[in-house]
């Protein structure tokens, strides 16, 4: 053990890991928001509520059907993603021709409804969801002891984030998505069913949020409001990274998680506001966000 700027190294590395875990959630949720915004031009305010639904779905699958963590990792995103598709067909598709602000207002209302219903039936306090047996240990890395579950969360997030980025940036399907983001009318006129693509994209974004929810269930308090305070921080992350930028959301998410973790180690009073402070600075020097060129 040694000291860095007066903080013992084990504490510092511990904070870094925590920061990376938080950053994993910022990146996953920011990625979902960026993908949805890119295709639908809608800020999905309900993203936090959908994340919360993912966590609750994991809890309910275990309680009611005895279905554990590992199957939940696959089942929950599919179920909540399907719910997202229903939302897109019922509510969102009417908004595409309108000013972008109406999408924000509608999804805000949706978030209130979802969160309100869950709070009504489950109350404000948290529900416990245990860490799966396989991931309850720790690894001794010499300079610190790394608990398995946080390492797992970070690993899954990195893989999912970069996998999504790769699919969008480097595959044929991704090229359809990118083109439809730029000029949906023309892409449709080439024979591609753009409305269906939009529907599936929203479903995918929601599934990402739900996946984050399952990952969060064992370590964060599963409660009706777990998504709402988190989503505002994720908004700041996405503003910093640049709204349309997939890579920007991912890098900003992990990066700001680290910044938050370090701030917690050195200036704990500032840790809850540091991300917003970074947003202010970025707005002053590069209003479009760190990863986006132009207006």
């Amino acid at each position: 053990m040694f000291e860095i700027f007066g903080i013992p190294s084990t504490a510092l590395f511990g904070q870094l890991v925590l920061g990376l875990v938080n950053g994993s959630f910022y990146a996953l949720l920011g990625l979902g928001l960026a993908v949805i915004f890119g295709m639908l031009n809608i800020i999905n305010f309900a993203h936090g509520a959908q994340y919360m639904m993912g966590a609750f779905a994991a809890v309910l699958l275990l309680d009611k059907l005895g279905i554990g963590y590992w199957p939940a990792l696959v089942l929950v995103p599919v179920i909540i993603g399907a719910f997202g598709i229903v939302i897109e067909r019922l509510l969102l598709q009417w908004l595409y021709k309108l000013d972008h602000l109406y999408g924000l207002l509608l999804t805000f209302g949706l978030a209130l409804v979802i969160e309100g219903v869950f709070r009504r039936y489950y109350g404000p306090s948290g529900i416990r969801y245990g860490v799966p047996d396989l991931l309850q240990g720790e690894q001794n890395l010499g300079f610190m002891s790394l608990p398995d579950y946080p390492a797992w969360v970070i690993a899954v997030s990195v893989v999912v984030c970069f996998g999504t980025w790769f699919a969008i940036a480097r595959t044929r399907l991704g090229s359809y998505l990118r083109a439809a983001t730029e000029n949906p009318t023309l892409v449709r006129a080439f024979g591609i069913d753009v409305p269906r693509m939009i529907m599936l994209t929203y479903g995918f974004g929601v599934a990402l949020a739900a996946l984050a929810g399952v990952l969060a269930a064992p370590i964060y308090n599963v409660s009706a409001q777990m998504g709402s305070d988190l989503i505002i921080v994720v908004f700041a992350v996405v503003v910093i990274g640049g709204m349309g930028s997939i890579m920007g959301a991912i890098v900003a998410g992990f990066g700001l998680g680290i910044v938050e973790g370090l701030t917690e180690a050195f200036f704990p009073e500032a840790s809850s506001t540091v991300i917003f402070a970074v947003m202010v600075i970025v707005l002053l020097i590069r209003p479009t966000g760190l990863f986006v060129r132009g207006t």
Partner: protein
Amino acid sequence: MGSRFLAVEGLQAWYGESHVLRGVTFEVLRGEVVSLLGRNGAGKSTTLKAIMGMVAKRTGSVKLAGRELSRLTSNEIARAGIAICPEQRGIFASLSVEENLELPPEVGPGGLSRARIFELFPNLGERLASRGTKLSGGEQQILAIARILRTGARMLLLDEPTEGLAPVIVQQIGRTIRMLKEHGFTILMVEQNFRFAATVADQYYVMEHGRVVEGFAQAEFDANRDKLQQYLGV
């Protein structure tokens, strides 16, 4: 020249409150090159877009080889075998040249192969990895035409294919269109530059205020030159 391929009857279209097409009627025979002429704002581009279903509100009849297209969505219309090369090219900035080329899916047999495309347009083959919009205007126009040739669509809609291009490129495009005609493609073209149109077109329709007001064949072009200049305000 063959039978009636594209038949447009009483086509009307609105942009919001604005009544842009007020009953457009004309036809394109199989294997023909037809040019729509007219002043800015006459509704030429809108006609192409309305045929493709790219306009929010439209009524009237559009038939391709006897099949009614006006109630279909634009992706269904494309799948019926029409492809559009839009105004200002429509090259996607976030896609590479290769991705732009490969984007439109196959809608029928008989599309040109990649090898054939690079044979016809060697420049494209050299710039595959570049961002689509890094190409010059002329190269983008070639790309915009090339990508719809891959799809197998036999009816091509070209919107201002020579706009803003250097004479050398304009000639290349003229050659390309003549080659496509030889291969049996049917082309409906919007072209401001009627001198260029005269080098490729078989038939002309003049539009004014959202309607077709005149129609004449290539053979009658000189006889109609004065009338044409009046319509175009040249």
